């Protein structure tokens, strides 16, 4: 338990804050949070942060509750496990999920926590974590797909003072950076994280000076209360007393032959409180896909979904946490026992989007989207230049793929986009300028988006032509289970990966692999999955379907899923369309299912090898400890 050293004595009295000042402080906090992003993006070196913005900022109140941020990393849990003093000028660093109550969830994430002092007392916390593209370990980018313990996943930094009263611990940093493959990247990113947190701290102090510390702190309380009160009303409105809602989605495999993993989430409202329960989920995985989730993070995720639609401008924060109870079974996928491997938790963290959508959408139509591109699949390529000016030089690429946003109540899902905020793709020309590869194709795959009144976004096929010998690694999912459709919408297509070797042979790759050798002329097709469809495809405007055929986003064959017949020159055949639609309506049940998950898991497993070219995984089972 951290011991916070403050020179000021006595408590700051709480004062009344007028509603306008409250909104001013809310605005100031929001600006400070975006400034944190800006500072980091502009200075980072590693592609994970620089181009894809894999980072999460937070500003907390003196007790560590998040008052503004993008993701609920948990300062209270961090401080709980930190056995030292915290003083002005300190900057704390960790990358050990097991030492901070899963405030971060794999060792690639470096988490900084910085106390904000004003006039001798803590007036808040600035914190940020960023995904380091490499933290050592047995594979480049530090995410071995066959890891069974965290010890295989690179350097794991226990919570310690990177800066003690403003002074950098050079020795410790040297030891850490000696473990990683691209120390320049880590150093720059770390500098950027520190600069971003210090910027936030400066803004908080400025607000204390402008409004007075008592007003500032009282405003934080009021902002937390605002979320609390809003959520209380929402919960009563949306969830029926005593009724349990459940939803189950899947992670297809764990990288070492087990799967699919069931992710089950249930919700029950009792009085003013809601209980979120992960009971019924699969046991922890042998491979590295476990997603060690923090209770507060679960609350945050839940809250974002609930509140975004009600008041998009709200500064959401931790204020409503007391209204939510969370149960996460020990030894489950969500709370694995140390030293379980964690590196590939990106699938779980993404699947939470689908899980909450499927759960909350059952009573809130505005939130009932189909299943989307709920991951951030990784592609890695590394090696040494074999000739030319750079002979012998090490290259290492880490990049994230994008896929189909699902059909939504609002409309179609964008093709080849990101569910994650602020992620961007790395331009082809950038990749070709910095890495020995060429991109032959970068386009969305027609018909991969699920059919629906609102079409799911298409997945993307990126074809990489390698120019130097090296090895590649892939982290993806949804190759076995389907991105489901809703309200009559169809599932989207699953993801696929294969290499066309320079000698003309084709090799199907599993969705999780590393150490796959590649040679010049080999072409990797990295095909991501599409989003599910929303609503009855037979209700979609036939003209729109035909236009999408002409645009190459849907094939004329694919148009038939909408009951639309398209002529050879891409126009609607009205008569044939009417006939086909009538036929399809007659052949299907009158009531369309809310969820279309595709075939049942047993059937998927039985046809796995035939359909995907990959062996079926073994279903995980709970064993009594």
């Amino acid at each position, binding site marked *: 338990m951290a011991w916070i050293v403050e020179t000021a004595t006595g408590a700051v009295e709480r004062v009344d804050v007028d509603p306008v000042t409250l909104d001013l402080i809310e605005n100031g906090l929001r600006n400070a949070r975006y400034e944190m992003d800006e*500072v980091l993006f502009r200075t*980072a070196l590693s592609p994970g942060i620089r181009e894809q913005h894999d980072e999460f900022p937070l500003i907390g109140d003196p007790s560590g509750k998040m008052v503004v941020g993008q993701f609920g990393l948990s300062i209270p849990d961090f401080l709980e496990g930190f056995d030292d003093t915290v003083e002005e000028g300190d900057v704390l660093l960790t990358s050990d999920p097991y030492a901070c109550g899963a405030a971060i969830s794999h060792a690639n994430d470096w988490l900084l926590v910085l106390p904000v002092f004003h006039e001798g007392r803590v007036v808040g916390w600035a914190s940020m974590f960023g995904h380091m593209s490499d933290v050592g370990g047995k594979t480049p980018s530090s995410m071995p797909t066959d890891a069974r313990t965290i010890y295989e996943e690179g350097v794991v930094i226990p919570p310690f003072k990177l800066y003690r009263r403003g002074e950098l611990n050079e020795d410790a940093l040297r030891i850490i950076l000696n473990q990683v493959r691209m120390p320049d990247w880590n150093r720059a990113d770390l500098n950027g994280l520190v600069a971003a947190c210090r910027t936030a701290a400066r803004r908080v102090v400025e607000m204390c000076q402008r409004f007075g510390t008592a007003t500032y702190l009282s405003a934080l309380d009021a902002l937390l209360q*605002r979320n609390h009160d809003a959520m209380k009303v929402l919960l009563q409105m949306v969830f029926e007393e005593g009724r349990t809602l459940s939803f189950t989605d899947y992670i297809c495999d764990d990288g070492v032959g087990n799967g699919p993993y069931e992710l089950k989430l249930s919700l029950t409202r009792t009085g003013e409180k809601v209980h979120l329960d992960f009971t019924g989920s699969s046991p922890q995985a042998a491979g590295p896909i476990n997603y060690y989730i923090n209770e507060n993070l679960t609350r945050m995720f839940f809250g974002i979904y609930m509140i975004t639609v009600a*008041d998009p*401008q*709200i500064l959401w924060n931790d204020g409503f946490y007391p209204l939510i109870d969370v149960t996460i079974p020990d030894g489950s996928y969500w709370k694995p026992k140390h030293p379980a491997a964690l590196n590939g938790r990106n699938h779980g963290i993404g699947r939470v989007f689908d899980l909450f959508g499927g759960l909350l959408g059952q009573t809130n139509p505005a939130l009932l989207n189909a299943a989307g591109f709920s991951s951030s699949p990784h592609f890695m390529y590394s090696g040494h230049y074999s000739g030319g000016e750079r002979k012998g030089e090490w290259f290492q690429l880490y990049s994230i793929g994008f896929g189909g946003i699902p059909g939504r109540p609002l409309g179609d899902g964008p093709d080849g986009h*990101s569910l994650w905020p602020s992620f961007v793709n790395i331009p082809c020309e950038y990749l070709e300028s910095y890495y020995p590869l060429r991109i032959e194709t970068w386009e969305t795959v027609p018909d991969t988006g699920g059919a629906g009144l609102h079409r799911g976004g298409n997945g993307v096929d990126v074809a990489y032509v390698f120019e130097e010998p090296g090895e590649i690694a892939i982290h993806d999912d949804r190759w076995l289970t389907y991105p489901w459709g809703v309200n009559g919408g169809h599932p989207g297509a699953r993801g696929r990966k294969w290499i066309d070797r320079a000698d003309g042979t084709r090799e199907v790759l599993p969705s999780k692999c590393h150490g796959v050798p590649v040679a010049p002329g080999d072409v990797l097709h990295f095909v991501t999955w599409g989003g599910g469809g929303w609503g009855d495809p037979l209700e979609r405007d036939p003209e729109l379907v035909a236009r999408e055929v002409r645009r190459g986003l849907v094939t004329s064959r694919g148009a038939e899923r909408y009951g639309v017949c398209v002529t050879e020159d891409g126009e609607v055949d009205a008569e044939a369309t009417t006939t086909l639609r009538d036929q399809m309506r007659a052949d299907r049940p009158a009531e369309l299912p809310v969820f279309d998950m595709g075939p049942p898991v047993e059937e998927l497993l039985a046809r796995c090898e035939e359909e995907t070219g990959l062996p079926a995984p073994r279903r995980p089972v709970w064993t009594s400890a």
Partner: protein
Amino acid sequence: MSYRLGVDVGGTFTDVLLVDEDSGATWRAKTASTPADQAVGVLTGIGKVCADAGIDMSEVAQVLHGTTVATNAILEGKGATVGLVTTKGFRQVLQIARSFVPGGLAGWIIWPKPEPLADLENTVEADERIASDGSVVRPLDEDDVRRQLQALAGRGVQALAVSLINSFADPAHEQRIAAIAAEVLPGVPVSLSSDVLPELREYERTLTTVANGYVQPQVARYVQHLSEGLASGGVTGELSILRSDGGLQSADAAVAAPVTMLLSGPAGGVTGAVWVAEQCGHRDLITFDMGGTSTDVALVRDLDPRIGRETKVGDLSVRASSVDVRTVGAGGGSIAHVPELTRALRVGPQSAGADPGPAAYGKGGVEPTVTDANVVLGYLPSSLAGGEITLDVEASRAAVSKVAEAMGLDSPEAAAAGIVDIVNENMLGGLRLVSVQQGFDPRDFALVAFGGAGPLHANALGKLTGAWPVIIPPGPGLLCALGDATTSRRDESARTVLRRFGQLSGAELAQILRELADEAGERLAAQGLAREQQTVGFQVDVRYHGQGFEIPVEVDPAWLDDGDGALTKLGEAFDAEHDRLFSFLLGVDHELVNARATVTGPRPDVAPVRLEEGDGDPAAALVTEHPVHVAGEQVTAAVYARDRLRAGDVVRGPAIVTEMDSTTLVLPGHVAEVHPSGSLLITPAQEG
């Protein structure tokens, strides 16, 4: 005798400013804009101003024009049907974009899917490939290109954009396609990405090239029509168009690369503000242009507006140099609302626009706007725009009362004060973007306020930022026309040169920059500006090798004579800027990304206005007194007529200064001094 004419065409008014270059005397005219044929309004204005000055229209040597025609084509979605040619495998480059979804964690749920500026139906692929080093991987299949273009010919394509992968490294394939297009699609203007933006990053380059083609036919028509209209009206002077970066270019150059003039309108305001501030002796300033639906802010150092590499129009963001204007989606027409769930006070982004407009306008608006809040607080006199609009105070109170009720406040004045405070805070966010977030302390700058609502909120923003004095130019609505008339000719050339300093020599850098200067210089020479009258500036974008963002650094031409010393100096300048922005340095090699040369002509010599000297007492300009609410109290403000104020008069707050197109609020504890050049300079009152 030589006369220059500044012309600014806005949505509602066309402003014309005639300057006698010899005496500095100016004449102004404001006429209604004529959207159906803007030349009509322009000619009316020119006729009026020439009549006032007693000169013949043929005596006008130069017509300098800032226009929103390109901007509006994009905002209203009324540009050309653009055909796009991409490299095979990249047909969906605009569809996929950067895969970016704006907003927070659940933002994708509420983000509408945008349509690309060039329809996929009109996008074809060229079978070819150039590598990032410019070498040819696959030669261009010309027969196939011909077939593809023929397919487009039947689709009514009005402009063609060609953007091939790595064309910044070698434009040969794009140029060949342009030649084929000239045969297959005669009369269709072609934009090549290697001309429009020879820089790395295919999406941004393609989008910029398509945007160029999208606005080109409309701009061409407009410029041609205006030129003809001017000529037939007897104006023989040369027509120049303001670029987004605040420089002038010939009408022909504007038609060739219209993407350079997307922000022509706002750039006029910034250049006008620079001129005004200079007259008052201030070289560092922040501009604050608050209109009905949005507010533009920009930072100017040493009379040089900061130039950004990105131009944003609505949702569209293209790579073209422009005055680094940041837009905040709030203005006088922004609507205040209180979401039921959170009971927070929100202002904007919805706007009442011009129709129905604020409740006070009496045109059927019932939603409380920022203007209504100002009316309730007594900051706006009872009529606007020279009496054309009479304000309905009761309607404003009724509208604002809804906010008071929803928030549980006890008076409409309290709610109005809240609305004004919130909108000022939103503005402050915009001002911080251009100042503190770029490492500049706003207290080192003056704040120049204009636009319909700027002078009303400027004093409050001076308090929030500490940027003093707050300068209110004379005739804030005419500032853009003034900017058009007082800026200089300009062009630039740029190129991506991706090279680590370790792989580059000072001599190579010098050669690249001088080539670019020659390119731009020749173009300006072709517009009639002799090379010896040109001033050349060099800028390069540098980063630490591996970073994703560059920092622009000015290159002192003297460095280029210093061999590899140029790179050392450049590295030092970059480090200093990085340290200023982010407070740390890295030990890795520097990398050159883009090189640019900017060539400008001399600034026109326009003598400033001089007001008649007063005695410091503004009593002669006093019109009436009016109750206003400030900080929860009702006080009495003196109301002055601006055109009766004399140089040196000191207006003490609380006070309101009115003129035809604007109202200035001077808060208690502040004074506004009338500068001889006509501007009001607001500062905190000295104690005692």
